[in-house]
């Protein structure tokens, strides 16, 4: 099963992922990282792991992994 992984320490809260996610699965209102930015939260129920967030992110927050179910 494909899964979206987030490296929230790299997040700078630009919200491009929130703007571009076709399933409205991302909100940037999560825990504040050590740089002081509120970070991304992914709703796994809604996420279809399309990778658009990876593509629009200037800070390389997203990865896609293949995980055992």
């Amino acid at each position, binding site marked *: 099963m494909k899964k979206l992984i987030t490296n929230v320490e790299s997040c700078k809260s630009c919200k491009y992922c929130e703007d571009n996610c076709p399933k409205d699965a991302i909100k940037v209102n999560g825990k504040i990282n050590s740089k002081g930015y509120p970070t991304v939260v992914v709703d796994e129920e809604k996420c279809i792991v399309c990778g658009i967030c990876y593509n629009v992110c200037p800070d390389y927050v997203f990865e896609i992994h*293949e995980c055992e179910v």
Partner: protein
Amino acid sequence: MVIKSKPEACFVDNKYCPGCGHGIINRLVAEVLEEMGEEKKAIGAIAVGCASLMPDTFGIDCIQAQHGRAAAVAVGVKNCRPDNMVFSYQGDGDALAIGFSETMYAAIRNDNITVIFVNNGNFGMTGGQMAPTTLEGQRTTTSPKGRDIMATGAPLNVINLMKTLDVAYLARGSVDGNANIMKTKKYIREAFEAQKNKEGYSFVEVLSPCPTNWNKSPQDSMKHIRETVVKTYEMGVYAERRGDNA
């Protein structure tokens, strides 16, 4: 198992402001070079400006050029090492203000290098001064009432000048949104392929947000590119590759 993750060259967090387009463009350059298997043999000539933050966080060999001279440095490196992939990475103040001559003469000579040109409409690093690319009416720290083109001339569309020359490849992309980022990546790939095929000068301009100096949120900055900047700087391919080793 990792299916998709950042390119190896982006080995550490970049130093750009939140929402800066440089982060996306750095990644596209790294992805293209890695996909072509050229990352170990590539050499970047890096401009002064926010581009100069790149070598600290970019795991591909780079030389820091003096302000405006990145294209000339790239040509020098290419002449010495013709088998290496050589590119310059420059902002609009660097490439079109202080470095206009170096930029244009590399194109005029059809030198076999690739120029990645980041158009964010101002001098980002020094605090948002007017650049040659600044839009008509755009407020900057040196045009506080908006750019008056009667006094400064019109925004410089460098691709319009270059398309009159014999060059290998010219394109303008943007980082506003997924579709345009994908297209821009294709343009960057074509540009490097042209160099690999010894076709001559390739130039990709990328419209990019500078939220800090535009005094806009990152989201509003992307909207501004989509709704306003593209009216002055239309996206597309302006010189197609002929693929003939000319």
